[in-house]
Each structure stands twice: as C-alpha cells, then as structure tokens.
C-alpha cells in the first residue's frame, strides 16, 4: 500500500494512528515492510476469526451475521452492501468469509444471512466447502434460535443454477431455522435484484433490532484494511493503459495465450498476489454490425438502458453481453421477435441448454434472424443482459512490477456452425485493443488465495495452463521478499515446445534456486497422456513430506476436471503415504483447508 495515499478519511485508522504508522514505515526497508504487511494480515485474519465468537456470544440478540460463499467476489460485494445498509439503520452487522466462519458458532447464531454462488456441477464454492460439509453432516446442530435468509447468485446458463443456495436454504429450515425472507436466485445481472432483496430484508429485520436496546454497530473486521483505497472499483473501473499484448504460445500451438501488461499508474489501485483483475470490454464492431443486420435494426436508434439514453450500437458495443449466451436471452428474443421455432426450443429447458452449449448470442440470432419490423431496438436491448466484467487471476506481484498488473489470458477462439468465434474479453484484449489503448479495470481481491504469511513456509503450486498466472505472482512476490521457504511448481499443457508458458522465466527461477522444484506434464508429447496429477503421484512421497513440513498447497486452473483429478491424487497420496484410510485422508485435506493451507482458484 502506498502510505502517501493513505488518508485518514479513506482508511479505518484515526489520524493519529496514520501518523504513527507512517512514522514506523518510513524507518523500514522494503523487506521489513513486506514482513510487517504479512504479519498484520495474518494477525488480522486470526483476530477476525476469534473476535466474532465472543462478540456474538455477548450480544446475544443484536448481530446480523452475513456470510458469503464466493469464487469471484460477487457474493462478497452483495454481503458488504447488505452490511452497509444494516449499519446505516444502526443494525449491528458483520460480514464473514465462509472460509473463516467457525462452524461451532452456528448454534449461537440468531440472525444469519447467507449470500452464495454455486459452482461447477452444483457444488459449493471453494470457500464454502467446509461449512457446507459441516451443515450436511451429522454434527450439524438443531437451530431453533436461528432466523435466516439465503440469497443465491448464479448463471442460468448452467444446469445447477443456484443449487448451493437452495441447499443451504432447505437445510437451515430442516434444522429448525426460520426464514426471514424467501430465497432469491439471481442471474448474472443480479445488481438491481440483489439490492431490492437486501432492502427488503432490512425492512424485515429492522423492527426486531429496534426492539433490542443493546443494538450497536459492529464494524466488520479485517479485510477492509487490505482493500485498496482507490476511488476505482467494479462500479467505477479505472481506464488503464494496455502496455503489452504478447503471445506466449509458440507459432504451432493449438492455443493462443497472451501475456498482458496493463498500467495502473495514477489509479491508486493496489493488489496482492492471489487477487484478480476485473475487466470490462467492448464487443467486436463486426459482431455488432452483424447483429444489427440480422435483426433489421438501425445502430443509431435510441434506446434506454439503466435510465440512460444511448444509441443501440453504443449499447451493444459497450454495455451488453453479446458473446456468452444464456436461456433468458433465447426466451426473451424468441418472444420479442415472435419466432415460433425458437419459442418452441426455449420451452424445453434441457434442449435449450444443449442448444446453447457452444453458441454465442450471435449464433442464436443467425439461426433465427428477425425481419424488419419484427422487433424494436428497445426489445433487443431488453432481451440482452448487462455485460459482466471478466475476472483474470493476476500474474504479477507489485513488489516486482510496481504499478503494472500482468495477466495470462487464453484467447477463446473456435470455429463452429461454419463461423469463426472469438471470446468477448479475450478477443478484445488480444485482437481489438492496441498497445496504448485504455481498458476499464478494477481489482477483485481474493483472500482465499494467499501466500503463507510466514516466508519460511514451503508452498506447492499446481497450475496447468493459464492456471500458472497467480503462481507467477507468488514467485515474483517470494523473490522480492527474499522468502526462504521452498517453492514447488507443477505445470502442464499439451506440448513442451509450444505451450510451456513462461518457460524462460521459470528456467531462470529454477537456476537461481527460487523454484526448488519444477515438474511439468506435457500431455500430448507422449503416447500416454501425462497430466499434473500424474506428476504429483510420481512424487507422492515427497509431496506428502512437504505437507508434513507445513507446506501450503495451491491449485489454480480448470475446475471441472483438473482440480478434481488433482484432489483425488492428493487424497491417494495422503492415504498411501500417511497410512490413512479414505476418510482420514479426506479429513487431512479438510483440515488443511480449514487451516488455509489448501487453497484453490479454479474456474
């Protein structure tokens, strides 16, 4: 954090505390500063966890506990917004990451609000896994004292839309809890609906808290201090300059992966290794033109969007989602354009989901163009949802790159239905944005993917494909800190000669000793496919030894297959090398997770 920009009104510290901190920091060298930063972060986490229990126990009636399960930060943002609303009404509220929530606390809880996303094939998000498992275990207590509400965030294009929220909602009721308000399951463009749900909830709880004289505001702890104090955020992104767009796969690669460097200069934005960069993009003008032509609409037509009047082509280019498809669009577009074929298709959810699997918005419209006069510009706008920013795991450490931020972006590019397709954000970064152009960004922090505070702690990083990104940040950070802990990286991709991301940098780290071990799996170079989990198994004894020595374990990359295969490999390794049964091995990894020694950033 830049202390010069730390002003009293923007920080939770008093003016006197700011002066004291500035006085101390001015005497520290960068390595000492880094140590202090890690120390404070660790003690804040500990304090956060411990402080909640007695506080809640003491004020038996007066705290709204808002917990969130989130991969991307969306649920956290909604939870924080709810807490702010509560505080404004003098309702004591605290926000807790589910990863930090003590399950033993649940039986004392009076007001519990859960905001959660759902993940992959209907599983809880990574930070909610422990709590979820507890809740569905035999240890889960009866909760007659509890009043609760659950808000689900999801994406209707997935089959298991908001399943985790529904699971929590049903389970809490089953255990005796009373609903404060009905659950809402919100789609990708959740902003307005989430705000309404929050306001409605506050209305419900306000009378109960007003009846409690001891009501007081409890500022939610910990993480606020780590949040960047910049004026820029998701709602107000910073227009950052693109410095570098460099392809880092070889010319014969089947993948197009870009190393992106963006300048944060002047933004005041700061980040930590493990955080993500949120990014808004402009849609491809060619795509916009084709869509206009297929719907027989004029780009100059004025439309209204979020109380704003603008031209249809502006709305399509800058504000709306044109690449990722979702059922609601098919339904609304079919209705607006009175397209019977699409209406029929949309009526069958399963068939529609299958139809949408590889299709972008444009493919749906190509299949079902609208004749002149069939629909209005406003109807098209209303059928589309607002563009959601894309999140990329940050591939750099500010200790190394200062006010730059680096990303590792796989360009989504494929041919389907006789047409080339390009990902919205990745296509924008890779092909439409020139070096020197501006891109709207913000920092999305991820406190559930953090280097150990203790620099002596060994780390095992498993990051095939673009999953390498945060580990480049970790390595830069540990290098800059002079951290003495061992670092072991597992990387994989199809071909050694073409897809060894950051090969020369990693070779350098290996040579200098920063990387203690580097194991690579190039799946397509051999008759038998070899993946990172195979490499883990190959080094099973040593992996277990590192874990026994206190190593932290990180996985980043593909959620559906890789992370599961790696998890299974880890279970097997623990079971075999620790002489445990399957259940004990599972428990071993659960404990690692609870101790924040097993963290995932998967997507």
């Amino acid at each position: 954090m830049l202390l010069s920009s730390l002003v009293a009104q923007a920080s939770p510290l008093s003016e006197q505390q700011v002066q004291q901190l500035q006085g101390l920091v001015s005497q520290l060298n960068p390595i000492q500063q880094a140590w202090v930063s890690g120390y404070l972060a660790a003690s804040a986490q500990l304090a956060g966890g411990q402080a909640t229990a007695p506080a809640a126990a003491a004020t038996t009636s007066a705290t709204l506990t808002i917990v969130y399960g989130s991969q991307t930060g969306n649920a956290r943002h909604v939870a924080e917004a709810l807490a702010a609303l509560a505080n404004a009404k003098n309702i004591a509220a605290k926000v807790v990451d589910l990863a930090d929530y003590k399950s033993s606390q649940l039986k004392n809880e009076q007001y519990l609000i859960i905001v959660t996303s759902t993940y992959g094939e209907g599983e809880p998000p990574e930070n909610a896994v422990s709590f979820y498992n507890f809740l569905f275990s035999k240890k889960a207590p009866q909760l007659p004292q509890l009043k609760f509400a659950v808000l689900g965030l999801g994406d209707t294009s997935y089959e298991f839309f908001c399943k985790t929220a529904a699971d929590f909602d049903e389970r809490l009721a089953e255990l005796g809890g009373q609903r404060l308000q009905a659950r809402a399951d919100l789609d990708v463009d959740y902003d307005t609906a989430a705000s309404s749900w929050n306001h409605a909830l506050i209305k419900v709880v306000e009378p109960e808290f007003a009846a409690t004289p001891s009501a007081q505001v409890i500022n939610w702890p910990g993480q606020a201090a780590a949040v960047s104090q910049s004026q820029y955020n998701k709602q107000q992104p910073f227009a950052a300059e693109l410095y570098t767009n460099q392809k880092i796969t070889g010319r014969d690669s089947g993948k197009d992966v870009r190393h992106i460097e963006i300048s944060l200069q002047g933004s005041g934005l700061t980040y930590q290794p493990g955080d993500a960069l949120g990014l808004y993009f402009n849609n491809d003008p060619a795509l916009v033109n084709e869509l206009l032509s297929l719907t027989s609409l004029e780009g100059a037509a004025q439309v209204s969007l979020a109380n704003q009047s603008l031209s249809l082509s502006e709305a399509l280019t800058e504000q709306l989602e044109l690449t990722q498809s979702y059922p609601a669009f098919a339904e609304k577009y079919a209705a607006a354009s009175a397209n019977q074929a699409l209406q029929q298709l949309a009526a069958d959810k399963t068939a529609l989901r299958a139809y949408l699997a590889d299709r972008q918005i444009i493919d749906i419209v190509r299949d079902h163009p609208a004749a002149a006069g069939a629909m209005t510009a406003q109807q098209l706008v209303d059928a589309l949802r607002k563009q959601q920013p894309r999140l990329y795991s940050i591939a750099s450490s500010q200790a190394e790159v200062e006010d730059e931020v680096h990303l590792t972006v796989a360009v989504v590019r494929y041919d389907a239905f006789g047409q080339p397709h390009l990902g919205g954000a990745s296509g924008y970064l890779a092909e439409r944005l020139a070096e020197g152009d501006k891109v709207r960004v913000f920092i999305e922090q991820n406190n559930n993917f953090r280097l150990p505070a203790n620099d002596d702690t060994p780390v095992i990083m498993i990051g095939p494909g673009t999953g390498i990104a945060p580990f480049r940040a970790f390595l830069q950070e540990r290098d800059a800190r002079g951290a003495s802990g061992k670092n072991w990286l597992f990387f994989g991709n199809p071909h050694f000669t073409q897809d060894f991301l950051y090969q020369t940098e990693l070779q350098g780290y290996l040579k200098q000793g920063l990387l203690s071990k580097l194991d690579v799996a190039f799946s397509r170079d051999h008759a038998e496919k070899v993946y990172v989990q195979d490499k883990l198994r190959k080094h099973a004894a040593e992996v277990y030894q590192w874990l026994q020595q206190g190593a932290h374990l990180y996985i980043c990359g593909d959620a559906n297959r890789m992370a599961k295969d790696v998890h299974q490999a880890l279970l097997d390794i623990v079971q075999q090398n620790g002489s445990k049964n399957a259940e004990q091995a599972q428990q071993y990894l659960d404990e690692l997770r609870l101790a924040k020694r097993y963290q995932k950033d998967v997507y």
Partner: protein
Amino acid sequence: MSQYPIKPELQVSGKLSDNERLKAESEHLRGTIKQDLSNDITGGFTGDNFMLVRFHGMYQQDDRDIRAERAAQKLEPLHNVMLRARMPGGIITPAQWLAIDKFAAEKTLYGSIRLTTRQTFQFHGVLKPNIKPMHQFLNSIGIDSIATAGDVNRNVLCTSNPVESELHQQAYQWAVQISEHLLPKTRAYAELWLDEEKVETTETEPVLGENYLPRKFKTTVVIPPHNDIDVHANDLNFVAIAEHGKLIGFNVLVGGGLAMTFGDNSTYPRKAEVLGFIGLEHTLKVAEHVVTVQRDYGDRVNRKNAKTKYTIDRIGVDTFKAEVEQRVGVAFAPAKPFEFTTRGDRFGWVDGIDGKQHLTLFIENGRVLDFPGKPLKTGLAAIAKVHQGDFRMTANQNLIIAGVPPAQKLLIEQLAREHGLIDDSHSEQRKNSMACVSFPTCPLAMAEAERYLPELVSKVEALLAKHQLQNDHIVLRVTGCPNGCGRAMLAEVGLVGRAPGKYNVYLGGNKVGTRIPKLYLDNVGEAQILSELDNLIGQWAVERHSGECFGDFVIRQGVVAEVKVSKTDFHA
C-alpha cells in the same frame, strides 16, 4: 599418454583451451548427458554436454528463423539436434533407406533426409525425447553416428565409383576398416543411447588419446582420376593406386582443410600434400599414426590452429612424415603418379563393368523432401521398395541408385521421372553448384546458403546465357560460414557468408579441386556479386582459351593472384 617419446619442441605450450578441459573431465565422452536426457524443463543440453553430444554424432541446434519470436514468447529457442550418421563410403541399403525415410517423416521437425558433403545423411530437427529412440532405431538397422562430429576422425569418405565396381569395392572396404580402426573405444555411446550395461574396465583410447584429438579430423579414400570427395578438404587421404584394375596400395596425402576464421590471418584453407606411397598392408598403421602424430603435436592451446594443416605448417612436412614413419616402422616410398581429371558426379545412367547399371540423381542441396511438384522423398522411397542393389550417397550431396539389373532399369527410370528425381531441365551449372545447410538450423551460419543457392544459380545461369555460355558451367559453392562445410574454398566461385545477405567472394579454384581460391570481394551483397560476375563472365566468354575453365581464366588474367602456398599466399 603416448607410447612414443614426445618431443616437447614440437608441441605448443600454454594454457590448454577449454575444450581440452571438458574432454578430460567427460569420463570418455559421457559427461552428464544422461541427466540432461531426463531434464524435461529444457529441450537443450547443458554445460559441457552441449559439446560432448557432438562426439556422438549430434549437434544441438535450434530454429534460428524463430529464435527472436520465441524469446518474445518467453519460450526457449526451439532446441533440437541434428544427427549425422556414420556411413563410411556412403553406401546404404534400400531397407535402411526406407527405415530412415519413415523416421524422418515421423520424428523430425523438418521431415527431410539431408545428404551431406560428408557422404552421409543427416536428420534435422530431432527433439530431445526422440534422441534416444533415434539411436536405438538406427542401431536396429545397423547404423550408428559414433564420432561423426567432435575432435575425432569423422565419417570416412570414399570415391563413389560404381563403374569400376571391383576397385571401388576394395577401396570401400578400406574406408570401412579405417573408420572402424579410428573409432573411439569408449563405451559411452552404447551405454548412453543403447542402454548397454556399464562394464567395469579401465577404458583407454590408445589411438585417439584420453583427450581425443586436438580438433576434428577428416579422412578419405579416393580413386583417381575422380576427385569427388575433394582430397584437399581433408586431413588424411588415401589415394588408391591400382595395377590392372587391382588395388596395390595408396599414396598418402595429409594436411588439407578448408576452415578458417574471419579476421584471423593465422587461419587459412590449405591443400593436402603428399607424404609418399605405402603398400596395402600398412594402411591401417599409417592411418593410425598420422592420427597419433597429430594427436601428440596438434595445437591444444589455440583451437583455431589445432588442425593437422597447421601442425604440418608449424613443424614442417618432413618432420611430420618422419614421425609417422618412425611410429609405423616403415618408410614411405615415392608417390606413384596419379592425376585428377574430374570432380563432379556423373549424372544419369552408367554401365558398370559387372553388367549392372547405375543411375546418379542430382539432388539439389542434398535435401530429400517432397517439394511442390517434386515429391523427391516419396520417389526415393518408391524406388527403395523395388530396388535390388544399394544406394550411394556422394560427397557432392547427390545419390546413386547402384547395381540395377538391366531388367529393372526402365522401372527405376520411370519412378525417378515420375517423382521429379530426373529433371532434364537442370543445367550443368545447377548440377555443379553446391551449398551447406546453414540457416535456419546451423548455429554457425552467418548468411543463407542452402535456401539461397537455387535462386543464385538461376541468376548465374542467366549471366552465362547472356554471354552465350549456357552449356558451360562454373563450379559454384556457397557456404554459410568460414567453417566451410560447403567446400567453397575449393570452388571456382566460392561464396562464404559474412552476415545476412553479405558474402566474401573467392575466385580461382579449378574444376578438379586442386587449387585454393583467393579473396576477390569482401563482405558484399548479391547486386555487387552478380554485377562483378557479369563483367568477368563477359570477359571469359570473349578471351578464354579453348576449353579454359573460369577459375583458370581469372588466374591467367590476374583477376586474383594464384594461391600456391596457403600460409603465405592466401592472405597476401
């Protein structure tokens, strides 16, 4: 180390070059190659192994066209190896050919078989995981690559003379025997590549020495009057002397070599000179002791002066000869008379004296690959499937389909024509032009050679036509660096790469390869080269004596001074 008394006054004293250290520390060429093979973080070899793999017949290379691109991509250079097979005399069977054809297609980046001036083939672009399987595969078909590079005696050449088959057969057998006799004795190759067990014996290298030779060493067996193998490019030559078609012995020529270093006038291309005649029974001993004398007295301090040619110029040819005679225990007889009258390959069909027929194919640049409209590689494979004789790779990078029974002649010819292997439109000029590999694979390349030669030849053809000399030719050779694989320093017009698009031009070699050319143009581009050649060819057309070749003409006219004694004349 030598069993012969060393005369310190004949040695060069000083701090040994680093290559001497790495050979000494290599445990007879093993180094840590084995560890490198299991290092899957880099496609290259590390430290000394980079040099040591050469002794096993491989060079670490990379695709230089994309080196900068890959650096920007944060990828290491596209490391691979080039493998040069050991094929004394260049004879390969159809079965072997089909096997290497398949390997090249499936396991190399470039998919080609490259015929080279060392009368063998090279695979270009073999990635690390394929290296060991490659050696095992070659071993399974009776081929190895031991000592085809590095400071050892390399692949032994032998005149490709299929006509006088009996004489050729005898000479060829000597080439094979000399090659075997001078091979390293270390079992490193077998252990590293063929997984043979380590045998607990004290290894020694009685011929090459524990530190191997000071520098590369090249040997030939040549059958006059044909000088296809270019004796003057070689350290040691056995010139076959026959009586009534029977081989009776060899004239021995030593000290040839074409490599030099730009800017270092202590280096120069040099012809071989005659030591004398020996009977067949002394062949291997003489080969051995030319090697041991060079081993003991070659310069191990300055690698640039380490070759036999410099040893002879330093200690004197008489001293060198006396040392060899003393070690062999036999004196050289006066050399028998011989003469070279040709050097290029005899393209097309020739009848052998044994009733078999032989077809010499012109392979431009020696690159066997399927080109648009010219599926050369497919064609040779098709021929190999039916051919009953053998193939002979020539030192001019061409290929002879040897020993064809008359009944198969038509079939072979038909296959060759169908696949563009016989192309009547090739001019004499094209067939007498040659280039080394150079870019994109050779790490030493300073300018294009193989990829540039075809268009350069077209331009020279145009010049000849302009001056009504389209039926004549000039021995034209392009080599990408002064190391000299393309043997430009025995050409009538030799281009040696200096920088991309820039060459030194040497003039004045002759048709049969018995004169070293001399610098005419320093570091110039194509426009100037062609304009100067236009001018000189114009003069040659008008003022030449009857049958006078271009190289002789430029010497007679004083365009360049004749190089008689390289040490004094070449840089004068």
